[in-house]
């Protein structure tokens, strides 16, 4: 019951953030994640960051995370 996707914080002012997910930039609040910092990869649900994403741990099981890293190296790559 919980669509949430990982995105990176690219702007942060108080608890107002802008996050980037593969080239899409969304507004999000970090009210529920006061420890979040600029550059962190966070999980976004309904416009809120609800968790930090441990990237090392994530790479072991989360294909999407692997794609995020690959994307950062080669933004023009097409999946499929």
């Amino acid at each position, binding site marked *: 019951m919980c*669509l949430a*996707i990982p995105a990176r914080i690219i702007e942060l002012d108080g608890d107002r953030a802008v996050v980037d*997910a*593969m080239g*899409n930039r*969304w*507004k999000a609040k970090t009210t529920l994640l006061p420890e979040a910092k600029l550059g962190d990869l966070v999980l976004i649900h309904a416009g809120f960051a609800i968790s930090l994403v441990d990237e090392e741990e994530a790479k072991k099981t989360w294909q999407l995370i692997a794609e995020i890293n690959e994307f950062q190296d080669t933004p023009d790559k*097409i999946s499929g």
Partner: protein
Amino acid sequence: MTEAKKNDRILLAHGGGGQLTDELIRRHILPSLDNETLSELGDSANLNVASKSLCFTTDSYVVKPLFFNGGDIGKLAVCGTVNDLAVAGSRPVALALSLIIEDGFEFKLLDKILAGISEAARQNNVNIVTGDTKTVEAGAADRIFINTAGIGVKLDCADLGYDKISVGDKIIINGTIGDHGMTIISQREDIKFQSNLQSDCAALAGLTCELLENTTGIKFMRDPTRGGLAASLNEISRSSGLSFEIHEADIPIKPVVQAAADMLGFDVLTIANEGKFIAIVSPESADDCLRICKNHPLGKEAKVIGEVCQSCDVPLVEMKTQIGGKRIVQMPYGRELPRIC
């Protein structure tokens, strides 16, 4: 000095058939779209086409926003109708253009749209030969509605139809899916977000004609616009009575499109495309078709995404997923709503 010169916006009188209409046509429409046939401004256009099989189509364009990354309503109005002619196996010859414009619409926006139409038509060797303009009260047309109708001459080598499709045929798409629809969604008032998303709006006649003229195994083509790949494949499956199996791992999708769809809970298979076509081709001709596509600017990411199979009970579109599972691809509802659950 007429009213029109002093005005920077459409007035209802511009649709009245009198002086202002004349001004609108001579000052804005003809300069953008001028060609011999159109400038006669007859009630109908006289066209000389050889006595061949003709394709004839029409479409209306109501997209909001009017201007988006990768295109605008004008470019869309040309490409969309050209593509309907292209996938039917014809070479587009002429377009009719109807504009319904609200009172108060700015001329500078109209001129921009006309430029978009002109550019798209020029790039695809097709003329706007006849047209009409109406004006309505503010609010009655959501700024501007456009209709285009198009005529194309069927290529001799085109032999397309549902009945031509057979078990074993391959399904090819010329590139990534979901680009146009997600771009529009990203600029919708209620959802708006910044993005690198770009519409794939493009006219495909050049590529489709090249394919038809240089291969012999093309059975059917369709452009997956509203409802995306899912809708088109289901329509073709139903009409041909055959089932399709597509492979998730082979469907080209840009990461930015997938991520935007994931955030909103959308299925990329159901999202509109405006520069893509599906071709169902004989297995022997698949390689040639791919080669031709990949050598063309609009087909660089072309892929074989599946094949035609025998139906068991009802014709179905099934997908083999990335993990080797299978699931049905249904006809979409017709309206994507963002979800959080």
